């Protein structure tokens, strides 16, 4: 990333006593697919609307393309937005909706018609110009909203939970399509979502937000593999947390002693916030544990307490010998692998390299 396109510098926003944004700093690059992920009420929408210019900041600085955005109204910003409700103008047809902002650009009629047509074709709605806007399905409304924003050739496209109103099938289809579109137009996309899977699938980088602050900003793989704290870890995917006593070794690695698994050394890179002596918890993703003896890593023994069958996957709760609480293990139901019953004794494979050490 060279010169960042958007710079957020300790951005703050409060509504009376409510602190919606409590000092958010981030740099977002040109052409990046950036996601804001977090639970309801954490300030995602507020941040997006602040970038679009609908919310005035109460502190900090926001620059886009090197320009300070304080007091720049939404209509003067190089951003365009796809609203959660899509905000399709009900009194205009599809073509008029898409051409709405072009009137200001001083294009002649032919150029405008062509731009509208191109934008509609790009989102797969070629020839829909004369369609009444109320005669559109949810997915089509979404595409019109996209075309209407993209036709403005913004530097940044802002999307507020654009897929949340669609059913699961359509949502997955639109995810792929959004990625394709973003690569095609090459501009920055900032996506707000509370769906961690959606963020992981689509983004170059993800900012996980809690309580008006960014808890972690990283690419999807690092976010998943090395979350900075337990809150982030449990918000993204599933994770087992096992209490442990920690000893720090001279080389910066941490030695842990986990009931049911035994002693292990965790690499310094897997220690969230650095290793510290005392109490801690190791986090293990269910898919990094394996039922059965084959494969790499070390082996522990345990008893199956619960089996949940999902078709492609089976989730087991296994109480390891000597542990106080069971761990969850997920196994892919590949051909030839039997599903275990409750009460079965089983070996469990694990690897210290797949563990993360937390101190919070």
């Amino acid at each position, binding site marked *: 990333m060279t010169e960042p396109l958007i710079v957020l510098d300790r951005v703050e926003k409060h509504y009376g006593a409510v602190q919606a944004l409590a000092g958010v700093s981030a740099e977002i690059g040109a052409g990046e697919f950036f996601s804001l992920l977090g639970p309801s009420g954490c300030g995602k929408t507020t941040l997006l609307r602040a970038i*679009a210019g*609908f919310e005035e900041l109460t502190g900090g600085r926001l620059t886009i393309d090197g320009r300070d955005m304080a007091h720049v*109204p*939404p*209509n003067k910003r190089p*951003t*365009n*937005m796809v*609203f*959660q*409700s899509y*905000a399709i*103008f*009900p*009194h205009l047809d599809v073509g008029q909706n898409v051409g*709405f*902002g072009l009137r*200001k*650009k001083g294009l002649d009629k032919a150029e405008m018609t062509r731009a509208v047509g191109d934008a509609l074709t790009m989102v797969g709605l070629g020839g829909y110009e004369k369609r*009444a*806007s*109320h*005669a559109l399905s949810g997915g089509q409304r979404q595409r019109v909203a996209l075309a*209407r*924003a993209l036709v*403005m050739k913004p530097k940044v496209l802002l999307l507020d939970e654009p897929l949340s109103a669609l059913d699961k099938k359509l949502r997955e289809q639109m995810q792929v399509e959004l990625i394709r579109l973003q690569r095609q137009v090459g501009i920055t996309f900032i996506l707000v979502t509370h769906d961690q899977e959606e963020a992981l699938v689509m983004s170059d980088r993800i900012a996980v937000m809690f309580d008006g602050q960014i808890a972690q900003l990283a690419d999807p793989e690092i976010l998943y593999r090395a979350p900075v704290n337990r809150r982030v870890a449990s918000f993204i995917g599933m994770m087992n947390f096992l209490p442990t006593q920690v000893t720090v070794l001279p080389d910066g690695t941490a030695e842990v002693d986990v009931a049911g698994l035994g002693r292990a050394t965790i690499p310094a890179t897997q220690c969230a916030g650095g290793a510290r002596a005392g109490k801690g918890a190791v986090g293990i993703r269910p898919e990094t544990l394996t039922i059965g003896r084959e494969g790499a890593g070390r082996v522990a023994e345990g008893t199956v307490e619960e089996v949940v069958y999902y078709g492609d996957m089976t989730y087991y709760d296994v109480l390891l010998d000597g542990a106080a609480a069971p761990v969850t293990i997920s196994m892919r139901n590949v051909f030839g692998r039997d599903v275990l019953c409750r009460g079965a004794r089983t070996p469990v494979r694990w690897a210290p390299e797949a563990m993360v050490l937390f101190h919070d």
Partner: protein
Amino acid sequence: MRRPGTLAIYAAFYLVFLYAPVILLPLFAFNDGTIIAFPLSGFTTHWFAELAQTDALIDSVVTSLIIAVVAAVLATLLGLLAARAAARTMFPLKPGIMGLIMLPLILPEIIIAVALLVVLSQLGIALASWTVILGHVLLCTPFAIAILNSAFLALDQSLEEAAQDLGTTKLETFWRVTLPLVMPGIVSSLLISFTISLDEFIIAFFLSGNEPTLPVYLWSQLRFPARIPVVMALGTLLLIASLVLLTTAEYFRRRGAARTGQDDHGGFM
């Protein structure tokens, strides 16, 4: 409440009660006799002919129409701004301010009439049509606000934001998005205000001076039995006019609703 049958019968009787006086209008308008009583004596269109020749009546109709149009436009303009403020912004003393503006809704009209009369005569202002307009705007503005407020509340705020996001200024947004979408509200506000003003008696009675409105003129005629059949003929015409107006308004409302794909339920109010 057990069987819908009982209720339906009640509803039928109730409708008879509601329509009983109105049905009499055309009956006596075409009745060939000066006495408004049964039995009826024969068919005539004489009263309608006489209607057209009564200059004072035609003058009062013109006066009323002018007053109603001006009052409706002014009330809707004031209402448009105030409803926008009420629906979309918080400002200091909002409940008190809105309460004062909406007060005429529950104030007996005679109080408004008396209060305005006192002020006007203290200031030495001669009563005329425009003093009636002053009172009618006061009376109609709350209705305009109530109608337009719900029009603004029904308007998804993100539509205006989307327009701004697409580069239009606040003023352009108002012209290109807000106004077309609240137009049905504006039309019904104009219509309701117009009707209220046209029908209002007490304020006009106190404030019209020697430019009587239609109700004030009617009032003066009701004392002369010989004039009653003509009044009936006029009432019949008014009834037809308001039916046509209402049906047209409903037609446009439905068409508007269909065009923007809204659910079509509810009616006039």
